[in-house]
């Protein structure tokens, strides 16, 4: 029938599940058990990790579709976590290594990684700890791989992707990737994109002290293996080939620097049953870490 027994009153533990947890990106309230923010789709793991450590800073890598954001972040994290002595990067959480793994895996097989989906819940939010050995400093960093199409949609139609706006409003620094491939053919789309991006950021926060005018911004010309002049003098290249962007940066940004980078030594196209794809013929990264190192030094005040 029934037997008397003692039952521990653990119901107080339910209280913590009832405590709302704010999303680290958009500050929206979520249940503790939520995996993704119900407002902006950012992973709630970020919020939980933040509770355990110092407040992370956020750095955005922005660019149009195909400008090389995924490759850039993947290679950067791989290089800094394996070989670099100037900065060292330690991933926090397995999901932060996934992007690095997918990118390195694809590039080693002479393929570019798959296109980042538009859905924010499928973006890869890299959370890592950056060590500056020379100064014995360390900072926490969140650096998501945002889809280019979603970014363009948000720039053209603000608030269409709340997560992007919320994220950018909290960013401490930005890397803007400019794909130089089209510039050689006389296409100015990348110049216009850069101008839009600078305008968007400035309109978001134009405060003289805390606004984007005073935050560090790296302008990175990607795929520069196709143009050695870009490597030799990125500023001169910007002045000549992206005059609109150069003017915007000159007039509106106080902490801005131009860089050139490339990952592939040469490229070609491969045609298979799946279609026609651009493929790298070999991987020899150039100028990948420099823009990031400069940003980190700007953030930490080490140089």
């Amino acid at each position, binding site marked *: 029938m029934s037997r008397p027994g003692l039952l521990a009153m653990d119901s107080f533990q339910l209280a913590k599940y009832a405590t709302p947890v704010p999303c680290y990106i958009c500050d929206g309230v979520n249940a503790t058990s939520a995996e993704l923010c119900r407002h902006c789709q950012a992973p709630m793991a970020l919020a939980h990790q933040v509770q355990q450590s110092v407040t992370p800073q956020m750095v955005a890598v922005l660019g149009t579709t195909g400008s090389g954001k995924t490759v850039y972040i993947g290679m950067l994290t791989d290089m800094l976590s*394996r*070989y670099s002595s100037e900065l060292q990067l330690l991933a926090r959480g397995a999901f932060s290594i996934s992007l690095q793994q997918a990118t*390195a895996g694809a*590039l*080693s*097989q*002479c393929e570019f990684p798959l296109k980042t989906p538009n859905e924010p819940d499928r973006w890869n939010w890299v959370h890592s700890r950056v060590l500056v050995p020379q100064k014995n400093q360390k900072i926490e960093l969140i650096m998501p791989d945002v889809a280019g199409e979603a970014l363009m949609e948000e720039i053209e139609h603000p608030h269409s992707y709340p997560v992007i706006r919320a994220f950018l409003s909290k960013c401490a620094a930005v890397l803007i990737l400019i794909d130089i491939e089209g510039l050689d053919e006389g296409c100015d789309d990348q110049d216009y994109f850069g101008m839009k991006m600078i305008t968007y950021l400035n309109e978001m926060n134009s405060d003289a002290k805390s606004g984007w005018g005073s935050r560090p911004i790296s302008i990175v010309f990607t795929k520069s293996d196709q143009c050695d002049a870009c490597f030799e003098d990125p500023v001169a290249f910007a002045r000549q080939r992206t005059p609109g962007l150069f003017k915007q940066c000159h007039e509106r940004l106080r902490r801005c620097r131009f860089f050139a980078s490339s990952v592939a*030594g*040469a*490229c*070609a*196209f*491969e*045609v*298979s*049953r799946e279609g*026609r794809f651009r*493929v790298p*013929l*070999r*991987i*020899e*990264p*150039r100028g990948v870490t420099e823009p990031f190192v400069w940003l980190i030094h700007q953030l930490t005040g080490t140089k």
Partner: protein
Amino acid sequence: MAADVQTGALALTGSIGVLFAWIAPAAEGSWCGYALAGTSAAVVAGRWAFRCLRRGTGMATESGDAGNSDHGATGKVASSNCHASSGRPAANPTDVDFSDEGSLVNHMLSQHRYAILLRPQVAANLRREHVELALSELDQHMSLVPSGDVILHPWRPAKPEESDDPHEGERLVSVEALFLDRYPITNRQYFDFVASGAYEQPAIWDPEILNAVVEFVDKTGHPGPRYWENGHYPIDEDDLPVVGVSWYEAMAYARWAGKRLPSDAEWVKAASWPVSQPDAPPTQRRFPWGESMDRSMANLWGSGPGCPVSVREYPQGTSVGGASQLIGNVWEWTSSPFGAWNCRFRALELPLPMKSIRGGAFDTYFDNQAQNSFQSGDALCARKYNIGFRCALGVCDVTTILADNPAAEEAQSECCPVNPWGVDISSSDAAPDPLAELEKEIAS
């Protein structure tokens, strides 16, 4: 000076005459070599046109340089600047007394052009001690790669979902015995080539590139590799591999030195050192030093200083045959086209025709792209900071046995049948015969 050389050369007979004919593209004295062949007018006219072309571009019009009518002056100015700036070796052909066979041979040897001296028709007219000297140089600077089969892999292997065969797309290629440079061509070696006025000698360049040779200039507009200045390489970089040279420049150098570029199969054969097995494909090394990656053996990303180093470094990474730095430091041009062979499931579309490069460079990031089997490519006119080259020489193309040993000579002729000119005409990669090139030029 040119007139003196010409007069002297015209007075020559016998072996020196033959030698002159062979070294024709080498130096100022080359005019007399051509003169001996009875074609001086055509060649002089060709050079004059070439020089005018360079003048027209305004790339190198300094007095005493390309614009100077005396070819010898080019070398002289270059070498004197060189001495003043960095104490690098002179490569001035006008300083050589061409009336003496010994001086000429020594001059050729100092330029690492022993391969020309070992051409059968030249060696047969040289004194024994000179052939011995040339053979000694050959032994010192080139490694022997025996003939045999080698497996070439496709640029990218088939994916598991495409084919169950792990060897899909692999080819078994037969390679004749050859000599391969032990080291990549260095700045110092290439300087000799530049200082000899080679950039103004149409005979050693591929005909299709003649119009573009005037654009093969350094940072200051002088003929030479892209990253040089004023026709010189940077100080203290004598032993660094020359980079910033196109495939055409590599080919021209090889011709000038009496050699050629290795083919893809030859390069892989030298690096992977296949061992034949009965009824089975040969087993090949993944790296020149063995089967597993060891970054201390080569200058690659993360293991070196992040730039090219001397060709003498990383001796522990030497191949079985004695060729150093096949992996790492700089990519190496080969004579084979890139993209012609891929697995049957995928076709490669190249933006421009490309030539195959092998071996990886100081900035090669992934281990699997620094293997013997990995192939990449670049455009023929690309002058990249991390692409250099080394030369090859068919064993059949040179006299490797001294003439007073009939038994050995007979043995060599049996194993390597050669045509009267000593050139393996069956090989598409064989270096063009300068005299044949000359005849073509006259005919045209």
